């Protein structure tokens, strides 16, 4: 078996696919929880591309940024989850089509 070298462009392709899945999920799914998870997916795709670029250029900036993003993402998902729970408590739904209060 020949060892296949993981080229950075492959990582970028994976990142693109994951990002697209996340984006479509956010746009198409109606459940806020799933939407939040898809946002996480998009963030991870971005992280992956950061790592890939970092390797491509043989620098450390990308890796460090990823660490930042991961910390922020953790905080963000905690807050997001909290918000969704609060919304569920008051509105009894997490369907994004039902929540259009700003429109009126």
């Amino acid at each position, binding site marked *: 078996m020949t060892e296949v070298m993981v080229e950075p462009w492959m990582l970028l392709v994976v990142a693109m696919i994951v990002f697209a899945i996340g*984006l479509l999920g*956010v*746009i*198409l799914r*109606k459940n806020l929880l799933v939407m939040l998870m898809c946002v996480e997916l998009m963030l991870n795709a971005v992280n992956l591309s950061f790592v890939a670029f970092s390797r491509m250029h043989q620098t450390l900036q990308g890796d460090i940024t990823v660490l930042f993003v991961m910390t922020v993402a953790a905080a963000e998902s905690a807050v997001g989850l909290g918000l969704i729970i609060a919304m569920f408590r008051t509105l009894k739904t997490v369907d*994004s*089509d039902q*929540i*259009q209060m*700003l*429109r*009126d």
Partner: protein
Amino acid sequence: MSLSLLIFLPLIGFLFNGFYHLKMARSEQKSSAMISGVIATGVMFAAFLVACTYYYMLSQLPADGRLFEQTLFQWMKLGGLNVSFALRLDSLSSLFVLIITGVGSLIHLYSIGYMSEDETPAKYFSFLNLFCFMMLNLVLGSNLPHVFLGWEGVGLASYLLIGYWYQDKDKVLAGQKAFIMNRIGDLGFLIAMFIAYKFVGSLDLIDLQKATLTPHVTTVFGLLIFFACTGKSAQIPLFTWLPDAMAGPTPVSALIHAATMVTSGIYLLTRLSPIIEASNTVLTVIGMVGVTTAFVAALMACAQTDIKKILAYSTISQLGFMFLACGVGSFESGVFHVMTHAFFKALLFLGAGSVIHALHEEQNIFKMGALRAKLPITSITFIAGWAAILGLPPFSGFFSKDEILWQSLSSPHGNVMLFIIAAASAFLTAFYMTRLLVLVFFGKSRVDPAKQKHIHEAPMTMAIPLMVLGVLSLVGGWFGEHHEHSGQEMMVMAASVILAGLGAGIAYQKYKNFEGEEKTNQFLMSGMGVDLAYLSVFAKGTGTLSKWFTTYVEEMIVQRTLRWSTAVVGLSGNLFRVVQVGSTQAYLMMILIAIVAIMAWVFLGVGQYGKL
């Protein structure tokens, strides 16, 4: 002592009574006719004494310098215009001041008795004082705006007093009519002031008297001033308010609508006589209007049944005589008639008031009769007034009226036509006044039996003014300027006395044993339909115009344009609102599409940036 006392005394009375009225009205108490009346009469009498003193002081001065002046403060000063609040007393204004304060205080005194039963005498007396304050401003003002202050001020007081019993809507409307018709005239006054300022550069009366203007400006100015006078002095075309003004209390009619306010037109014309005289057109118009008013109003007076209306039309007619005098350039005789008229017409009104008072608000002369025995003082004084207005010698009216008749014939501006119409008016005057006298005091009694028992002579406060005015009506004419009478003038005198006697005789024959009620000419009684015509043309016209403006211009054009333009804006707003669906995911979709589009534009070379 200063001139300002003349105006401040009535002002004090006004303020005192005004606050006294408010104080009582707030606690729903009746103000005392005695307290308010005595104060009001007191200040007027004090002003009369001041006026007498000034009259005496004035007569001590040399003939060409008879003038007192007092500047109180500066009123309006802007650019070249400098209007001060200054009082000026000369022989003309001192005569008017004497009439206003003298006759005024008598009528104030009379009012104490007349208004004793009224609900709010303090209010009444405060208005009366306000009137005197404004009237004195009118005759003492040293410049046109100051005169205008008095001019509108007396109109205001007149409005308040005509509609004094304001719970009666008709009386209020009569007051409103008077005020608005006066304001129509006042517009003439205002524009005359603008013209005077533009062409003379000053509004001071002395500057105006000295001013030389182009003939055209003189004519326009004179006509505008005269127009203002027709409003205040109830001449054609603005005379119809005066008969309605009789809705006010009778002493008010005597003071405002007979003796003083309505003569302010004569005052103004005389005051500005140098300008008025400079234009023949103006003089002719004044003379024609004056004599026509005198005749027409006398004719209308013959058909009235209301005692006060007869006197009102009589006042209009007599004012016409005064304007006739001004129109033929004989301002002195006009002013002389103002004085004698003030005495006898105030007397006649107060006498009528006494009759009305005695008969408990009965005003129809066909429901009176044979009151001579029951009202001795009233009837004797009334006869004196009657003789004076007829122009029977030696009563006061004789001197002034004959002077006017003579001037209308002999003056450079007079002519036979004016004289004949004036003489005819004098004849009619004799007729309707005798009719009034006979129907009220002589003949058979037609009084409502229920009221018959309660007929009583006036109390002392009312009787004293009657007697004083009776004496003045007799002697008032003796102090005019006497001059040698030519033979022709004697003829005129004789003719007028004969005419008066003839008119009186006919009326006496017709009415001495009159019974029932006379069917008078409706056309004349209603003031020849002028009132109705004005109502349908001006009052309705204003209403129609405002209706048109409201429905057509405002609703159909202004509001509709506004509605449409707002609708257009609203619609375009809705158009863009479609995009705002409110779903987060739809927004995200739009963002996605936008990003893709921008990327395509940038990287695929769709736009110019693609070529970078």
